[in-house]
């Protein structure tokens, strides 16, 4: 006997449960992988001026060095109220390169230049980008060396897979 209502109800309940499962599971940490989403405060505050770098792109020492001098942040005053600064510090420390097992995190975990807090100034970053001409970073569609997401389509996720690299249209 066909029971269309029962079938529809089963599909609806099953579908809802599956959707809920996907949403909940996306926030569960997978060992070695960066969390699926950036912290909201971090993304809003740090992302106001530049690409919000996934915390896994630098070791804790670098992040703490940056947070210690927000009033002189690469030439600008980027001071935060103590509440937001504290929350961001904790988030960075818990999600820095030491906690993640991606290619980018593994390469950038080394603090080879203790005086520089710029990710793009590390020997590892320079080596990985040595074949990219300066004009690419200067292009309007890119904006700066720090605009990871201009070419790395998966930059926000922190994965930086080689196959996800694509220059913006009109840049070569």
């Amino acid at each position, binding site marked *: 006997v066909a029971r269309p209502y029962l079938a529809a109800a089963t599909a609806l309940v099953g579908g809802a449960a599956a959707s809920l499962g996907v949403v909940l599971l996306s926030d569960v940490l997978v060992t070695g992988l960066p969390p699926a989403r950036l912290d909201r405060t971090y993304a809003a505050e740090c992302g106001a*001026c*530049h690409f919000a770098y996934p915390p896994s792109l630098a070791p804790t020492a670098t992040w703490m060095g940056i947070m210690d001098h927000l*009033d002189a942040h690469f*030439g*600008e*005053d980027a001071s935060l109220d103590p509440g937001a600064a504290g929350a961001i510090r904790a988030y960075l420390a818990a999600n820095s390169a030491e906690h993640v097992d991606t290619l980018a995190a593994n390469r950038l975990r080394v603090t080879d230049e203790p005086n520089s807090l710029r990710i793009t100034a590390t020997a590892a970053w320079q080596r990985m980008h040595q074949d990219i001409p300066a004009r690419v970073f200067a292009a309007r569609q890119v*904006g*700066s060396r720090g*605009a990871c997401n*201009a070419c790395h389509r998966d930059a926000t996720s922190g994965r930086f897979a080689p196959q996800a690299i694509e220059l913006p249209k009109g840049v070569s």
Partner: protein
Amino acid sequence: MTRALSLLVLLTLLGGTGLAAATTGRQAVLDHYAALAHEADPHFAAFTASAGKAFFLARPAAGGSETPSCTVCHTADPRNEGRTRAGKAISPMAVSRTPDRFADLEKVEKWFGRNCHTVYGRDCTPAEKGNFITFMASQ
């Protein structure tokens, strides 16, 4: 048709409400700075767009070496989209282009606090802040 029309009316009303809220918020911010300006100088009369314009276009070169003026990031025409030094777009400062500008005192104070140091190498006075907003509201 009627449905589309009522949706349009609803959206216009909602948009109007948001705009009115931003205007009220901006006036509250200006009133706040006016009270402080009066406290600092009993002869203070009113903010002027021309003083705000001069302040915006000036080149104090007193803050960071790469940020001698506001226009480095915001361009000389506040109706233009700006660009941070890191390459991120900044929506125009002109209220005609970004209607919800300067409507939230906390946000306004945060950015004056940072950018006055970055460009002017000091805190801005309440009069400077009020003139700046008055100029941007006229653009």
